[in-house]
Every structure is written in C-alpha cells, then in structure tokens.
C-alpha cells in the first residue's frame, strides 16, 4: 500500500524533520504521502510536494487545525488511515502528542523514536535514555511509529508530487488554543544546526549564559542547555537537550559547564565531534568528549571567542 508522514510545520514553513521522516517512511512502505494539516498552509503543502520520493501531498486546511491540537488531528488522521499500512510522524512535541492517540484508536502499538528501519516491520529504537537499543518487530497490520530525526538523513528536494486538497472532519471541540510564547532567535534551530553549543549549571546565571552567544554567532551555532540550566531559569525550556528534551546530532557539540549526566548524554552523544569545557577533570562529560578542555569556563569562553575572531570567524 503506502505510508503517510505527518508534516512538521508552523503554517508558514515546512520543517526539515519532515524530510527525515520521509526517508524512514520510504524504507517501510512506498509510495510515501505527506499530510500537511494546518490553517492557510498552502505554501507548506507545495513545499511538501517538492520532497523527492513523495508521491502525493495531502493538504487539509481548517481553523480547527491551525495549531495541530491532538484531538482534531487524531480525527483527521483516522479519516485517512484506512489507505495506509504505515503512519509516521517526526518525534517532535507535535508528533509525540498526536500519534499515540491515533495508535490507540486503531488498536495498534506504537514504536517510539525509531533509529533504524531494519526491515519494513522491524525497528531499532532507544530505551533507558539510549543506554540500550531495542530491536522490535511490529505485529501484522499497520506500522505506527515516531521517527528520531537525528538518526535519518533528509530526503532531497526536487520531487514532483501531486497536491490534493482534503476536507478535515468536524472539530471534536474538546480543546482550545489559548496562546503561545515562542522563543525567537535568529540562530539555526537546535535539531537541525550543524554546530550546537550548550551551557549548563556551570554558567551560573542567565546573564552569564549570554557568554555563549558571541561564540555561537561566530560559528553559526544553535544554543542549547542542560536541564539544570533550564530549571534555574537561565534559558527557556525549549533549549533543553537530553532524554526528555531535544535530541541532537550535529557535526560539533560543545558542552560548557555541563557535568554529563546520563539524561543529558542521551540527547547529544551521537554528535560527530564533542567538545567539553569543564573545570572538573573527572566530570563524566569527558568520557564522551573527543576533545576536553579542563578549566574555568569564564576564562576559556572569552579566549575561545577571541581566538575565533583572530582566525577570521565573524
């Protein structure tokens, strides 16, 4: 049959997470269709139709879908489910919110955060904060899974899928969007940045946390944080990297003033190169770091910034 991928977007822009989920879907069942649900998101649907390997982009536009709340999204996906033998979503907070509802209504188990498609019904996914990898085989029937985007390459641009408008079922009317407070940043997004620099409790204050900014700007890096830094109010929740925050796998991850708890490592240990700056030579972060700089970050960070400037990074 076919597989359906839930597109990640904000009504204006299609996110790269979609392209990665498409790669996973293509290994499970083809053709691949992408569902773009939202309000006034025509441009997103057109972008989805350009992902290579996608046969059809389904576009559902309705005020009730504007925020992709779980209840109307469940109703929409259930109205389409019959035609698919796999339904996937990127493991973002949107996908994680919606997909288990769909799975339960279809009486189908969900496999969370697949890392690898071993065969169309068999997947690897992390358990215990990534300290173990479980290989599971789904029963006959539909495959329902969220996709760890850091583990898959993005499907290329350049496809020519057909665009089909579909009608959303009536809003179940159980929930209502009230408002949002989104972090604004000119920097690349954490989950798709090539370089990430993260700060921990060692930064000591929201004011000090800004020391990371200048280095981040020079390296065009995204800025992340440990849970302790978020809990202490240095930065908002969406900066958190880890088992229960965002999972990143950039080319370069720089951990500053972060001890390296299991839960933090779970979110970054698949980065290509890891740098740790910490004054405690025994900090566990050094066990996963390719390059460790033992020292006071309040000395090393300004030095790093200066040295980058000297070498022409702006």
């Amino acid at each position, binding site marked *: 049959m076919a597989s359906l991928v839930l597109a990640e977007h904000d009504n204006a822009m299609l996110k790269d997470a979609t392209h990665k989920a498409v790669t996973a879907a293509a290994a499970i069942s083809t053709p691949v269709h992408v569902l773009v649900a939202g309000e006034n998101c025509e441009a997103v649907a057109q972008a989805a139709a350009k992902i290579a390997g996608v046969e059809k982009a389904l576009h559902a536009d309705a005020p009730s879908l504007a925020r992709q*709340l779980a209840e109307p999204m469940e109703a929409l996906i259930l109205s389409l489910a019959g035609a698919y033998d796999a339904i996937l979503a990127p493991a973002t907070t949107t996908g994680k919110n919606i997909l288990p509802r769909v799975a339960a209504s279809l*009486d189908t188990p*969900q496999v969370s955060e697949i890392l690898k498609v071993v065969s169309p019904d068999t997947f690897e996914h992390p*358990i215990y904060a990534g*300290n173990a990898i479980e290989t599971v085989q789904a029963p006959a029937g539909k495959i329902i899974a969220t996709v760890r985007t850091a583990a898959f390459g993005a499907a290329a641009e350049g496809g020519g899928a057909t665009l089909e408008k579909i009608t959303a079922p009536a809003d179940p009317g159980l929930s209502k*969007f009230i408002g949002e407070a989104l972090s604004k940043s000119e920097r690349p997004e954490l989950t798709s940045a090539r370089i990430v620099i993260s700060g921990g409790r060692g930064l000591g204050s929201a004011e000090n946390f800004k020391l990371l900014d200048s280095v981040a700007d020079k*390296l065009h890096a995204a800025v992340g944080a440990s849970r302790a830094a978020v809990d202490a109010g240095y930065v908002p*929740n969406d900066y958190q990297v880890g088992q229960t925050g965002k999972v990143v796998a950039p080319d370069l991850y720089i951990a500053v003033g972060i001890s390296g708890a*299991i839960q933090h490592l779970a979110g970054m240990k698949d980065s290509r190169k890891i740098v740790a700056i910490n004054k405690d030579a025994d900090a566990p972060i050094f066990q996963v770091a390719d390059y460790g700089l033992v020292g006071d970050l309040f000395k090393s960070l300004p030095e*790093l910034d200066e040295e980058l400037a000297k070498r022409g990074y702006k």
Partner: protein
Amino acid sequence: MKVLVPVKRVIDYNVKVRVKADQSGVDLANVKMSMNPFDEIAVEEAVRLKEKGMATEVVALSIGPHQASETIRTALAMGADRGILVKTDQTVEPLAVAKILKAIVEAERPDLVITGKQAIDDDSNQVGQMLAALLGWPQATFAHSLELAADSAKVAREIDGGLQTVEVKLPAVITTDLRLNEPRYASLPNIMKAKKKSIDEKTAADLGVDIAPRLKVLKVSEPPKRGGGMKVESVGALLDRLKADGVI
C-alpha cells in the same frame, strides 16, 4: 473532584543500566528501583490540588509486580488517599497500560487523570495520549503549569518552540513535564500514616484486559561506544583539531 494518578515503578534515574550479555534485555537484578520521576511530579500536582481544596480524593495506581505496591506507598506518603495495584509480572506495553487505565477510569470515574509524560525505562511517551483517545477525552501533554476550574483546565505545555497554552474540557488527561512542580519528600509521620491507607489489588483479567505483548522484542543491544577522546591544553589547540576534523 477525583484525581487518578498512575505511577510506574522503574529503575532509579541515577542508575546506568547494563545490557545483558545474551541481548535478552537489561540487567535489573539488585538494581535500585524508584517511582518514575515524572509520576512523582504528577502525584505532587494532584496532592497540591487537594490541598487547595480543588480535588477531593487522589487515587494512585500502579501496574506491575508485587513490589510496585512500594511505589504506591510512596505516593500515599506524599499525600494520595488510597492505592490500586494491578498485579502482573509481565511486561505491559503502553497500549495495554492505557487499556487497564481505561477500565479503572470507568469504575472510578475520576474527573482528571495525571500521568507522567514518559516512563524513563521504555521512554515511550504514549500512555497518557492513548488513554485520552480510548476514553474520547481531551489531553494536555507536557504540562508546565496547570490552572484548574470546575469544568475545564488551562495548561501551558512545553513544546519544541517554547510554551503553548490550551484549555481542555474536563474530564481530561494531563501529562507532566519537568517544570510543573518540585515534588516533596514524604515526612516520617506521613510515611507512617501511609502504612494505614488501603491498597486494593486487582489483575488485568479481573478488568477484562488482554495484556499480551503485541511487539516482539528481537534483541536488546548496547549502543555504539564512542572512541576515547583526548584532553587539549589550550583553546588554540582545540581549534586546530576542530579545523583538521573539518567541523569548523
């Protein structure tokens, strides 16, 4: 208003698990077990609702082996009123957990179910959403703050871009995120008091729920190990290395 809080007994968050040599699972023998941290947050929130006079009864429920009653006792010591243990020695997948919870909800008729957002052993992040779907209830996942009214709840949710606030009609399922509250430690008098609270014991069969696993675990393996790293002496040396590696 009655609040139901499912609490899972899991490996303590400080323990680094080891994969068994035969790849059949992880080694849980003689490992410290605790209440799932997100469920502690859920219990705390429910108890606070009771202290504010908004909830009348808090029921803690666990699905698991005999020892899961200790996890329920912890919830009772934090302030929950009574417990229910659905006893099984089997692994219970999220969908089956949700089905058991549905059966309990139908018998207990709570107005609110507060679950953790994820169990730190299976890391599934599924049960709350599945339960809401099976009941046809709304959900507010990854709760950062909660404002409860008589027939609705306003919940700020931790999402990838920041915070999103939704209002859900009651009854509803709420799942907790880390910043919702800081769970209390149970005091000694409350631990003593908890010993007198009742824990009702049931089985999945009593509830008419089939909990046979649907997913087949083929193996559990160790994640790839990172090669040993090195210490660098200076920022300059560090940048030289990164440049040579082609990452900056």
